[in-house]
C-alpha cells in the first residue's frame, strides 16, 4: 500500500484515547507511512528516542508527560532538533497554539480534526524537512 510521495517513513503517534490513536494510525499507514504508537508522554519520548522517526504527532493532554513537555525534551536533544512535531489539542483556550510553538512544535491542530487534513499537513512537513 502506498500513496503519492510516502516511502514508508516512520511516524510516532501518541494519544491517550485509544480510538483517536487508532484513527490516526489507520490514516497514516493507509497513506504509506509506518506508525509507532504510544499511550502517554513517556511512551512517546521512548519511542522517539529509540525509533528515530521522521515526524511525531502528539496529543497535548496525556498522562505522565504532556505534549508540550515531550516536545521540549525532544528539542533539547540535538539529534531530533529538526524533527517536525505536530500537536493535537482539545482545548479552546487562547494561547494554546502559542505555547506549543514556544515549546518547539512545528504545527498545531484542534480536535475534532479531519484525518485527511492531518495527512496533508504531515506530508507537507515531511516534504519540507
Amino acid at each position, binding site marked *: *500500500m502506498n500513496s503519492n510521495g510516502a516511502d514508508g517513513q516512520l511516524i510516532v503517534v501518541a494519544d*491517550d*484515547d485509544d*480510538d*483517536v490513536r*487508532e*484513527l490516526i494510525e*489507520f*490514516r497514516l499507514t*493507509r497513506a504509506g507511512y509506518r506508525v509507532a504508537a504510544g499511550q502517554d508522554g513517556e511512551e512517546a519520548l521512548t519511542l522517539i528516542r529509540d525509533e528515530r522517526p521522521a515526524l511525531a504527532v502528539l496529543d497535548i*493532554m*496525556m*498522562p*505522565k508527560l504532556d505534549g508540550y513537555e515531550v516536545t521540549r525534551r525532544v528539542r533539547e536533544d540535538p539529534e531530533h532538533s529538526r524533527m517536525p512535531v505536530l500537536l493535537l489539542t*482539545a*482545548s*479552546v*483556550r487562547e494561547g494554546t497554539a502559542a505555547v506549543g510553538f514556544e515549546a518547539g512544535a512545528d504545527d498545531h491542530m*484542534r*480536535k*475534532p*480534526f*479531519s*484525518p*485527511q487534513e492531518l495527512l496533508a499537513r504531515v506530508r507537507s512537513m515531511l516534504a519540507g524537512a
Partner: protein
Amino acid sequence: MIEAFRTRLSWQSFGAIFVLFALNAAALVLLFNAIQSQENAATFAQRAEQSVAASARLERLVVDMETGIRGYLLTGKGKFLDPYRKALVLYPAAAGELVQTATTPRAQELASHIQRNIDSYVNDYLRPLLTLSHRAPQRARGGVETNRGRQRVDALRRMFRVFDTSEQRLADQHRADANSSTTTARIITLAALAGVALLCLAMALYLQLRVIRPVNSLAWSAKRVAAGDLGARVHTVDSRNELGEMSISFNEMAEALERNWLAAHQAERVKEEFFALVSHELRTPLSSIVGYVEVLREETEEQPLSPEERQRFLEIVNRNARRLLRLVGDLLFVARLEAGKLDLHQSDLDLSTAASDSVETARPQAERAGLSLRADIAEGLRIHGDADRLGQVMDNLLSNAVKFTPEGGDVGLRLSSSDGRARIEVWDTGIGIPEAEQPHLFERFFRASSATHAAVPGVGLGLSITKAIVESHGGVLSFASAEGRGTTFRVELPLR
C-alpha cells in the same frame, strides 16, 4: 494612668496643650504681678515725693514766720510782719497736709511731732514775743537774739531733716523697686516666649514623627492596595497608641482583602479548569466520530475498506456517540441540579439485577486494567426508584474503583440488606483518598489530585451526581478510605 500617658496620643496631645496653657498662664500671672508691683512702687514713690514737697513747703512757712518776726523786731518796719502773718494763716493747713501725706505711721508720728513743735514755737515763743514788742520793743529785740529762739528753730530744722531723709529714702527705695519690677516683667516675657517657642517646636517635631509620618505611610500603603498590590502592609511603630491601632486594623483589612481576592481567584481558576476539562471531554469523542465518519465517507475504489474495518469503525463511532451522549447528559443533569429541578423516572426495579448488570458493564474495563472484579449480590432485592440513575450510580462507583486501583488489585461490589435498607458497597484495594481531600470529595468540580496527575478521564461530576441521585432516593452515600490501602463507598437505600 501613667501608662495611658505614655502610649495614647490623645492623652499626650492634651498633656502638651495643657502644659502650653499652664506655661502661658504662669507667665501671664507673673507678668501681671510684676506690673502690679511696679505700679504700687511708683504710686508709693510718688506719695513719698509729695510728702517731701509738703515738708519743704511747711519748712518755708516756718522760716517765713521766723524771719518775719525777726525783721520786724530788728527794724520796727511793719512790712516785715506780712510774711509772718501770711505764714501764720497758712501753716496749720500745711502741717495737717504733712501729717496726711506722711507715708508711714512713723513718718506720721514725726509729722505730728513737727506740727506740735511748730504750734508750740508759734504759741509759746513767737506770739508772746510779738506781744512783748508792742509794750517793750527793746526787750523784745533782745529776746530775738537769744539762743532760745535759735535753738527752737534748729530743733525744728533737724526734725524736718529727719522727716525728709526718711521719706526720701522710701521714695528712692520704691523707685528702685519699680525699676526692678519692670526688668522682671521683661525677663518673664522673654522667657515665656522662649519657653513657648521651644515647646511648640518640640510638639511640632513630635507631631511630625509620631503622627504625620505614620499617617503618610498608611496613606501610601492604602494607595498601593488600591492600585492592586494586596500584599502591602503598614509597619507599626508603636502598637499601643491610636495610630498603631489604625495600622493594625489596616493590615487586618489588607489581609482580608488579599484572602478574598485569592479565594475568588481560586474559584475562578477552578471554573476555568472545569471548562477546559469539559471541552476536552467533549472534543475527544467528537474527534473519533468526525474522524471515522470522514474515513468511512471517503472510501474510494482504489482504497476500499474491508467489511471488518467498516464494521469496526461504525462501532467506534457508535461508542463515542454514546459516550458523548452520556457526558452531555451528566452536564445537563448538573445544570438541572443547579436550577433545583431533578426529575426521576420512578418505577419498581430489581436492584439485584441492576447490580449484576453494572458489574458486567465494568468487567471489560477491569480486565483491561489487570484487576480482579468480584461480585457478592443478594438475590431479589426490589426497590422503588429510577433504574437508569441507580445504574449510573453503580457504574460510576465501579468505574472509579477501577480507575484508581493499580494493576493486580481487586475491585468488588456487595449488595445486601438489613433493617429495611438495601446496602451497596463498592470496594477496592486501590490508592485511596488522602485525608486532606476527603471533605471535598463530593464537591462539584472537585477532582482528587491523583486523578489530575494521571489525567484520569472525567470532569469531576461523577461523585456529586452520584450523591445527588442517592439522596433524591432517600438514601445516604458514604465512604471510608485509607491512602495506599483502598476505598469503600457505601450506598444505603430504603427498601420498598
